[in-house]
């Protein structure tokens, strides 16, 4: 791996009116690593990734992708730059098949005159390629099954398989395990591990410290829109991360709130 960072932000800021959602955040992401962004609700995790995937534009600071200063007008530009995002709500069409969802908006067209003229979809190819895409995330799912008949973990896998269709260098995952069963969480963490071994850089947003410690290479902690620090996952512990998530304000009420959200995440 080259020493060049695949993602760098320099003093990135985002204001909504008077509210500073993100202020002066500088992070580095190494190529091929899993970097977890943790923080309490409202810490600015979502705002930060929305700037990285082009949904929001920064108020100040820079985004540098593979050494190049970049400004994304929308998420299509980010996608072209090799950044794919799997949103928390997955954005899957529930009544459609797995294959349709993997190819949503980019359906394979039959390679003959009629096919190209009328946009006739190559269903066989879509099924085969969807199957391959799902093999890549190592979760076997019938490509003809309707998404709404799948479990939460399988749906997450479909969303990831779709994101991988464009061969991204960077995959941003927003709370991929928040609504899953214990088995589903394990599956998704396996998928993340798998993708890392395929050389994809992953930016993982989570509020579940235990999961993050198990899967991430490094952990960046946000609180109140500011970066509290970044730690090697194997050189920190839960206590340190929690205290960093508390930021400067170390009051009891917030600690209680944090523990509530933690146990929610694990029970779901």
């Amino acid at each position: 791996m080259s020493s060049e960072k695949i993602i760098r932000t320099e003093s990135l800021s985002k204001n909504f009116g008077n509210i500073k959602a993100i202020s002066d955040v500088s992070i580095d992401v190494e190529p091929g690593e899993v970097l977890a962004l943790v923080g309490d609700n409202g810490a600015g995790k979502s705002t930060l990734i929305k700037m990285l995937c082009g949904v929001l534009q920064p108020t100040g600071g820079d985004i540098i992708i593979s050494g190049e200063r970049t400004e994304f007008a929308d998420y299509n530009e980010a996608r072209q730059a090799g950044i794919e995002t799997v949103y928390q709500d997955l954005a899957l069409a529930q009544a459609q098949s797995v294959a349709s969802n993997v190819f949503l908006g980019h359906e394979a067209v039959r390679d003959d005159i009629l096919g190209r003229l009328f946009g006739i979809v190559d269903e066989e190819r879509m099924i085969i390629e969807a199957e391959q895409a799902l093999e890549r995330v190592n979760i076997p799912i019938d490509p003809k099954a309707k998404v709404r008949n799948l479990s939460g973990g399988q749906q997450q896998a479909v969303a990831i398989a779709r994101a991988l269709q464009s061969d991204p260098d960077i995959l941003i995952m927003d709370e991929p395990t928040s609504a899953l069963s214990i088995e589903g969480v394990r599956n998704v963490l396996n998928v993340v591990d798998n993708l890392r071994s395929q050389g994809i850089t992953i930016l993982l947003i989570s509020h579940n410290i235990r999961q993050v410690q198990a899967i991430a290479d490094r952990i960046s902690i946000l609180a109140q829109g500011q970066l509290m620090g970044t730690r090697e996952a194997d050189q920190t512990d839960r206590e340190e991360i929690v205290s960093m998530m508390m930021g400067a304000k170390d009051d009891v009420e917030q600690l209680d709130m944090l523990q509530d959200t933690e146990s929610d995440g694990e029970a779901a």
Partner: protein
Amino acid sequence: MSNKETAQAADSPSEGTATIRGSSGLVSRILARRELGVFLGFLVLVGLIAVTRPDLFFNWDTISGVFSRLLRQVSSYIIIGVGMTYLIVGGEFDLSVGSMFAVGGIVFAILLGDGYSVLLAVPAVIVLGAVIGAANGAIVTKAGVPSLIATIGMLSVLRGLAFFLTPGGSRSVNDDANFVGLFGGSHTIAGIEITNQVFWAIGVLILFGVLLQKTRFGYHVYAVGDDEQAASNAGINTDRVKITNFMLAAALSGFAGILSVTYFGTMFGTAGAGFELLVIAAVVIGGTNLFGGEGSLLGTFLGALVIGIIPILLILNGLAVEIQELLTGVVIIAAVLVDIFVRKQG
């Protein structure tokens, strides 16, 4: 490793890879059953005619006339229903189709009366429909007016236009004009008079059935109706899909008007009133999800047969026209309730 495999088995609702082929068979069987159910319902209604009026049913002369009438009537519902199916699958609907049917037939009659060729008048009416549909679509998607409000408004505008264009109450078409027979003519097959609109309806059904099931546009229609945000995130221009559907629905309604006026020779300003509900009923009875994302044109075809045979059954048994209206309303509500119930079970 075994841990992971157990996890995957537990995570999947059915038993792992064994379902890869099995479940698609199941899905298509369930779908087929829905359409089979509608067809069986139609056969029951036909059976009721046989039971209540055996004198007419088992007499080829009368029953051939009954089926001729049924096919003619449902071909209008089918042609309009094709556009309505696209719209409903795509998450919208259009209440102005009945008025557009009248405007289409009347404008066609006026153009012919002014000496224009049928070959020019037909595309002109289709383009007029597409423009009106584009207006519906733009009002709904760009201005954010719900389709209920936008198309009820358009229903009134077009009905007013139909009355305005028929000062004497109706417009007539000269049967002798070239190519009129292509649309309004008929063939007698096995003793049943089959009007050309039936053949047009079958053609429209097959063409747009293939487009809906097999093309990228068709895939996008389903995706937009299923989850507009998801479709939009995936880069689908959802407004364009919806506007196209509105254009298709209005253009096909105008075309159905042409087929009607060329067959009957005359179109009244009141023509097609109430079609919107009958057509929506046919679409929903046919299994299209009223909330979008699911449905088929085969279902709409079968739903149109059901909607078409109910008044025939009533007329043959001497029931009043008012009862037909009432019953149609009951059938629509019942069909939607059954639909919601079935989906909850599924």
